[in-house]
């Protein structure tokens, strides 16, 4: 395989690995910009993956699976909201609890319902989101450089991949060009300002969490019914945390979020590719060295080496009207 083929192949797998990160990080963006820290992204993704796999299997329709994933993810979001907005609980504790619930409940239910050792039955055909071959691939294939990129990176992805990339500008537009976005950004910075302007802080934050749940559902569904063909125990494997790291790395902004996710996806892809292959002069690099990179990069960022990341000011603090 020559270097260009390797490059194209890594790029293709970068895209595939980045999609759940993009959905999840955008999900986290809406929640955190509204002032609700969401460490429970991982749990939402896992629960959504499970629900999507179950419903896709039962109905034989990937879209119904997706709806199921979105539904359960929104339910998780609302539980987080009930604990942290309505009852002013600690947002981290609530998020961690949801992660544990998702990790445990998915396996138990999968075992109880399907008896396959904690996984769901394999999906085939219409029950999955299958790769879409874009028009003109055959014609383009022989064009040097652009051809293989078009055929293997841009074409051949499933619908959710394209939706993820569409979600980025859409999120930006909602956040910066609509009334909802203006209020959402304000409530994450100074909820008292929103309250005194005659807007309900609680209702606004709940709506933000619904958006978070909605996007989180896509991430989960992508894992179980697009990238894979079944739900597997703990299949999110820390992606929720990496997405959170990407969110911090991107300083809570939608377009940088996409690039951060692509970067972290790329590191993951390189790590996978390098598995078992010696690097000249160094020898074999353990795959963990690549897996740790997103966290290392985020720490470096937080330490102030790549500019300063200011989290939304009111993040993590329940809103209490002052007396």
């Amino acid at each position: 395989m020559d270097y260009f083929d390797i490059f194209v192949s890594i790029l293709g797998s970068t895209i595939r690995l980045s999609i759940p990160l993009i959905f999840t990080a955008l999900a986290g963006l809406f929640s955190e910009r509204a002032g609700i820290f969401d460490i429970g992204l991982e749990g939402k993704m896992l629960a959504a993956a499970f629900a999507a796999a179950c419903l896709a299997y039962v109905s034989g329709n990937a879209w119904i699976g997706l709806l199921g994933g979105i539904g359960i993810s929104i339910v998780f979001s609302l539980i987080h909201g009930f604990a942290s907005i309505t009852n002013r609980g600690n947002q981290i504790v609530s998020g961690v609890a949801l992660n544990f619930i998702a990790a445990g409940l998915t396996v138990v239910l999968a075992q109880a319902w399907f008896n396959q050792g904690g996984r769901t039955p394999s999906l085939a055909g219409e029950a999955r989101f299958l790769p879409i071959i874009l028009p003109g691939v055959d014609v383009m294939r022989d064009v040097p450089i652009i051809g293989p990129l078009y055929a293997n990176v841009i074409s051949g992805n499933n619908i959710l991949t394209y939706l993820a990339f569409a979600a980025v500008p859409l999120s930006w537009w909602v956040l910066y060009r609509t009334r909802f976005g203006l209020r959402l950004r304000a409530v994450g910075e100074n909820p008292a300002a929103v309250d005194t302007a005659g807007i309900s802080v609680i209702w606004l934050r709940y709506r933000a969490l619904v958006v978070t749940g909605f996007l989180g559902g896509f991430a989960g569904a992508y894992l179980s019914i697009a990238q894979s063909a079944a739900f597997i125990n703990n299949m999110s494997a820390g992606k929720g945390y990496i997405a959170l790291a990407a969110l911090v790395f991107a300083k809570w902004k939608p377009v940088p979020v996409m690039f951060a996710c692509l970067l972290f996806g790329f590191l993951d892809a390189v790590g996978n590719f390098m598995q078992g292959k010696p690097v000249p002069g160094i020898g074999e690099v353990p795959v963990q060295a690549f897996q740790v990179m997103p966290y290392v990069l985020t720490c470096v960022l937080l330490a102030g080496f790549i500019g300063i990341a200011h989290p939304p000011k009111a993040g993590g603090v329940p809103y209490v009207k002052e007396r």
Partner: protein
Amino acid sequence: MTPHPAIELAGIDKSFGAVHANKNINLTVAKGSIHGIIGENGAGKSTLMSILYGFYQADRGEIRIDGKAVTIRDSQTAIASGIGMVHQHFMLVENFTVLENVMLGAEGGQLLAKGVSGARKELKRLEAEYGLDVDPDAVIEELPVGKQQRVEILKALYRGAEILILDEPTGVLTPAEADHLFRILKVLRDQGKTILLITHKLREIMAITDEVSVMRRGEMVATRRTAETTVEELAELMVGRRVLLRVEKGEAQPGKVLLSVKNLTVKDGRGVTMVDNVSFDVREGEILGIAGVAGNGQSELLEAIAGIRKPTSGEILIDGQPVAGLDPAQLRQIGLAHIPEDRHHMGLVLKFEEYENSVLGYHREPRYGRGALLDLDAIRKDAEEKIAKYDIRPPNPRLKTANFSGGNQQKIVVAREIERDPKMLIIGQPTRGVDIGAIEFIHRRIIEMREAQKAVLLVSVELDEIRSLSDRIIVMFAGKVVGEETPDAGEQTLGLMMAGAV
């Protein structure tokens, strides 16, 4: 027939649990007037205004706006009734632009694009009509406080406010900014707006209001035409007894230099230079006042002297000995007492009981315990003595500190630091959020320290306080000492120095 008054409150009553915050309040505010509401902290001014702005609902009573009875359920209905409020702590989103802040809650549609041009035009009009010039595209956190406050006023006017409530609006302003604000308020009044000004500063009431109402312990005790009353009468109405507004003190008899600060430079956490090459001496038996608008390096200076913040360069000498490396506990041992600027963040642990706070920082001393154990009986007895001597109310050492009023909390800190009999005392904002009665008391204690030949360094943003207590005054601006004056220096001279204009 006379027109309806802008605001009529009839029999407003509000309790929070056992606290009766507003008792049967009646108030009439004429349209197109500036009406002052004055009272000590905890007198119920803020509660009353919060009821008017829909934060709380009154238990009983009626609110009439323009003669029409209204039920103000929330801020939205208050805004709809033409009431706008400028809060003491600005309700602004700091990383938003002026325009975004003004539009928030009144965007004019689901999409922002539609509202933006209208909002720009309206801001232009308001600017022309009332002299409220602010760049609509400036980001709030980059604006000086005075301008931020203007944005708050613009927010209210943009929403069509006819009645403007200002809660302690001058607390964070320089004298010049305050004067500018007053000019704006007068223009607003002349254009027919009604203004309610909440303050505890008598001087402001006299300078700008047409009428003034005094609150005391939840009751409205009097309403006067400002022209027909005096500062003395208002003070007496507020406190319920005669108050000495002037601090009586003898000639200073300065002795040897006790505290000496030489070329001190201090940076804050972000690496910004907050104190820039500052030098001064404080002698025994004198009070050195540091005047300045909040945020010009006074806090960092105090923290450096108290051993809380490490100076970047320069020297701090106490009795000729360098002390820059010492921590607060060691500094206390050599006789430096510190009454911090912010009692909630530094002076007290609000969840502790009173007696615990009354020894905090000195709890290692042998009279309060042996080894690792505290002698609770001794501490409580000590706390009771301080409570008696400083008239701390309620006189209960087992009460949670958070449940004391601001003035009494401050007295707990003052008692703790002064009763230790230090050689020198550094004080930040001794009477911030403290009622008049307690102010008089605390000022007295500070003067007594001076008369006992202690060295006192006083930092305050209240120019009146600095002028009445200090023997010498230095002014800080942007981290530098811009000059030294005597207490006889005019307010205008000091005000200009505080604004960096000299």
